[in-house]
């Protein structure tokens, strides 16, 4: 099925450039957090969703600074004021100061959701096995747009107008830049064997923060320069 989908893409005619991902730094694992389901960046801290706790990590020294108790099973996002967190089959809007859940909307994939990011007034939700990214209204959860890709989607992020997503199938894991209109693959960063990308978030500069799934680690990966 994967092969078939690929053939429809113009990218298979002009294969996307492939690089090895350059891992700049590894954080964790942190005590009591044996997996990382999602990551986000609030301008100062990296937030890692560890299942039962959202942990804020200082990227300078790698120390956890604080944590919020909440269910966090998949992607995490930050809109400048609030955190958004996928838990079971819903998306919680969380006050980062108190950890209080302010609102919840149904997740578009009814629980098969993986990555989450905020951009341009919308939430973007990765669908793992469905190989899709939904753009949804953060107030109602209504699906505004669907982008189809040809790999299982883990984390999703926007960086300087580029849409990137993580993919992790079995032993293969990559960070991919795709065309937000056609879903065509434009660039691929291959993760080394044994490391995978669960959550993905750009820090707004030259780094991606990647959740390492059951390794419990967060990795910083250098983002290729915009041409």
């Amino acid at each position, binding site marked *: 099925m*994967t092969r078939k989908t690929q053939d429809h893409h113009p990218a298979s005619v002009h294969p996307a450039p492939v690089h090895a991902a350059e891992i700049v730094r590894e954080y964790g694992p942190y005590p009591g957090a044996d*997996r990382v*389901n999602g990551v986000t960046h609030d301008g100062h801290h990296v937030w890692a969703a560890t*299942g*039962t706790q959202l942990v804020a990590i200082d990227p300078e020294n790698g120390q956890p600074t604080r944590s919020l108790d909440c*269910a966090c*099973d*998949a*992607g995490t996002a930050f809109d400048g004021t609030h955190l958004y967190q*996928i*838990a*079971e*089959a819903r998306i919680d809007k969380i006050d980062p100061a108190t950890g209080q859940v302010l609102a919840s909307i149904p*997740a578009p*994939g*009814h*629980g*098969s*959701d*993986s990555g989450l990011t905020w951009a341009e007034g919308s939430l973007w939700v990765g*669908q*793992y*096995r469905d190989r899709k990214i939904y753009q949804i209204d953060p107030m109602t959860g209504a699906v505004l747009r669907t982008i189809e890709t040809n790999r*299982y989607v*883990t984390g999703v992020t926007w960086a300087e107008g580029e849409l990137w997503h993580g993919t*992790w*199938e*079995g*032993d*293969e894991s990559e960070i991919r830049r795709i065309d937000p209109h056609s879903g065509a693959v434009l660039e691929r960063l291959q993760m080394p064997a*044994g490391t*995978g990308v*669960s959550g993905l978030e750009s820090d707004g500069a030259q780094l991606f923060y990647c959740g390492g*799934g*059951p390794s419990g680690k967060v990795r910083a990966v250098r983002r290729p320069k915009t041409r």
Partner: protein
Amino acid sequence: MDSLINAAARALAGGDALGALKRVALRDDPSALALRGIAMAQLGEHPRARELLQRAARGFGAHEELARARCIVAEAEVALAMRDLRGSPRTLATAAGTLEARADLANALQARLIAVRRLLLLGRLEEAAAALTRLDARDMSPSLTAVAELAAAELALRSLRISAAQAAFERAHQAATRACVPALLAEVAEARATLDRPAARRCAGGVEQALRLDEVAALMASSGLVVDACRRGLHAGATWLPLARRPVLFALARALAEAWPADVDRQALIACAFRIRRPDETHRARLRVEIGRLRALISPYAHIEASARGFVLKLHEGGDAVVLAPPVDGEQAALVALLSDGVPWSTSALALALGASQRTVQRALAELETGGRVRSVGRTRARRWLSPPLAGFTTILLLPAALPPE
């Protein structure tokens, strides 16, 4: 990898099987199927669990080998709990190899341990012992160690190495304590109790005495001649002479040992060996032939002399002639005692050993099977009978914990 799968896996790891099911009950993607299968197994719904795990294994793609191998191991574990031994050991071995290659050592060890327990259940004791010694115990979690030691204890018990079995039980107990799993501790205690139950009766000079397994082992290690009516054979020092396929010789040996040091009347010998109450001259000739055969067989340890009214057993060295009988009399007890060596027996071999008809043996076995005191593998003519395993193996605890693909 997606939200509900993570949530369900978290519930399952916390022992909340119903909570896990609630989250993924309506989903049919392979990760969800695997989680549903494990939850079902924990709830005791074994046939449904197997079906779900099989579907999950098929659903994972070629690039998701690790997840597929874990499903195969989990399914094998459930099959073992159902005592279904038809599955191919090769599939399990391949899965174990995949897990080893991908550095998932805990699940790989578990796969190897399932293979050992399967061989134990099939009564292939030598292969089981060889596979068990190949396991690398260093990386084992306490609960896996406990299971491995239980298997070692069972192997030792079947071959009557009592001190080895006691040591293995002690290690199993310690590991189960470390694992903090009450069900596993109970299992070790239950299996260990086998050591304290009467395992046989010692009959010598008209006196009977109940023996525990360690006393049986001590008796066999002593000098003298032990006629073992449990396993049908003779122990002479370190030598074991099996007589399961020679019922007449065994009956004669038993009668002579029971009477020792006195002699036994010819008429009585004919009655017990040939089951004839009014013998004529031909039976006395036949008795002489059979006594001659027995004499040749046991000549290194004892000889048989003719007395005025019959025959008498004389031992070469010091020591006694003793008969070791099953703890209680009767066909069923004799069958259970015969099977206690842990290897598979066919109905015809059992009938021959006990000198009973196949139909009688089948009837007794059927009753014993209903009571769970023996079990069978195979069908029709390939059917073999085995004693039940000493340890039941708490399956639920051992299912691979984390199945979401990664």
